[in-house]
């Protein structure tokens, strides 16, 4: 049944609400424990560094999947939001001296503003939207390079503060950054979940079925899609900003790199973009695989392996790894 694959926001059978809450809470608790494990086990700084980068991708992958699953839009240009969020936060903190804990969400806000430039593209049909957003990503990279008076241009920008110490807890340390990212990813997952089960989420699922039938009962479908684009841009911008303050150095070719568009797609498709856990877990697996396995096999051009993974997933398991497991389970 199709409903199994489309991850219903509300249980199809009205299951007693009491029975569901502990299960969800338990899973959440379990995931948090899992997330805390590396710290508890005293993972090496190298490993924590990898996990930090992986979690940055988790956040972007989640944002990408939200746009795809709820908004029905495929984006090949999330690097634009990522880079805009990174530069906005770094510049606000570095040039205006605003506190980093404020500039990070502001980075998300600026990414939302930049997404407004994409709104006319929403008039285009799905495939054309995908291409339009591909083109947009380039615009921002060129702008960041050309506006060298502000961004330092191609030479890069690095005189901006890192993550601060809060209540004696150093967020700039590997452990601190890691836990901060776990919290941010969890927060975004909760927000995604809340949207998905709201009436807005229901309407968005209905739009995917039949846009006219949904609009005719009073749903402003374009507005709801805009909202999803903006939410997705915000989350991506925030993670771009976090990354900027963790890395401590920005240059246009890095901040707007196609990697930030490509990796989230692979992660979300791999994990299953119609779920919430899929993109998060997918990003961790794909990033670690890329850094540890693929890079070891092929130093330059290791993305070719990711390309094969992506193509393989679309052909063999378009619903992601979780979908594949479910399919096997049903056939067994």
């Amino acid at each position: 049944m199709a409903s199994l694959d489309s991850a219903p926001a509300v249980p199809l059978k009205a299951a007693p609400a009491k029975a569901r809450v502990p299960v969800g809470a338990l899973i959440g608790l379990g995931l948090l424990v899992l997330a805390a494990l590396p710290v508890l086990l005293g993972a090496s700084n190298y490993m924590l560094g990898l996990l930090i980068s992986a979690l940055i991708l988790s956040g972007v992958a989640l944002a990408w999947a939200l746009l795809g699953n709820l908004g029905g839009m495929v984006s090949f240009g999330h690097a634009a939001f990522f880079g805009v969020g990174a530069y906005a936060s770094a510049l606000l903190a570095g040039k205006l001296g605003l506190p980093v804990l404020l500039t990070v969400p502001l980075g998300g806000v600026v990414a939302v503003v930049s997404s407004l430039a994409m709104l006319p593209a929403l008039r285009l049909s799905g495939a054309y939207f995908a291409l339009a957003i591909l083109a947009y990503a380039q615009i921002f990279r060129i702008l960041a390079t050309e506006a060298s008076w502000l961004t330092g241009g191609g030479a890069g920008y690095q005189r901006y503060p890192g993550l601060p110490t809060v209540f004696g807890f150093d967020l700039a340390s590997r452990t601190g950054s890691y836990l901060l990212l776990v919290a941010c990813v969890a927060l975004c997952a909760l927000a995604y979940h809340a949207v998905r089960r709201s009436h807005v989420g229901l309407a968005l699922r209905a739009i995917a079925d039949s846009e006219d039938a949904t609009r005719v009962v009073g749903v402003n479908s374009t507005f709801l899609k805009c909202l999803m684009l903006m939410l997705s841009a915000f989350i991506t911008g925030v993670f771009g900003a976090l990354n900027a303050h963790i890395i401590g150095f920005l240059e246009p070719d890095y901040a707007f790199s196609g990697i930030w568009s490509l990796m989230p797609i692979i992660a979300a498709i791999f994990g299953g973009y119609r779920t919430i856990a899929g993109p998060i877990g997918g990003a961790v697996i794909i990033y670690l695989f890329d850094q540890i396995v693929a890079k070891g096999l092929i130093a330059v051009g290791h993305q070719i392996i990711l390309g094969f993974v992506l193509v393989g997933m679309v052909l063999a398991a378009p619903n992601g790894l979780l979908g594949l497991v479910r399919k096997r389970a049903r056939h067994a």
Partner: protein
Amino acid sequence: MLELDAVTVRFGGLVALRDVTFSVKPGEILGLVGPNGAGKTTLFNGISGLTRVRGRIRFEGRDVTKLPLYRRARLGIGRTFQIPQPMQHLTVRENLAVAQVFGAGKHNPERIEEILSVMELQAQGDRPAESALALQELKRLEIAKALATEPRLLLLDEVLAGLESQAKRQFAAKLKELHQRFGLTIVIVEHDIETISGLCSRAVVLNFGEIIADGTPAQVFRDPRVVESYTGTAHA
């Protein structure tokens, strides 16, 4: 209630509606009659905002000609589709909830239950609308969805088609009940002369995109042009 002034719709070179002018009075049940391809569904699409029209459409004194589809739904124009278009992956209740929240502006579960019970869909409430429903249930869901937006004007596109005469009479009685209970003005597309005569206080006949008759059902069905268009002798 609803006033149409010289409404014209062209698809490329084809004129689907030409200078259609008529008005619907509050509380009326108006039958929209005409052979296939006469422009009835196009007219509904024009009124509800699915198709752009030339001319002017006023709803409760307000010019809605340029308003988008969803705004008209919120103002109180509800409609059904000839081929039911449920929100497939949502349950029946969720279908109504979306219509209610976005079309009427606030969530009211009791009202949803009321609509479900009137439309005899309570047993199907938690089923997904895609495959679990029979065609007639889907047609009732179409109406229920429209009702959930709290419309004052309801456009019904061939909701009675495909029913045998006994069921048709029952359903027509149901429509009269809705008309009373929800204080609706209804425009209904229907072919069956007997049903129109029993249900409607007035009938408008379209042929080749133009109004050829407008009056009480008894009057229009005596009109020779209507008889001609129905038997099709003149244009064969």
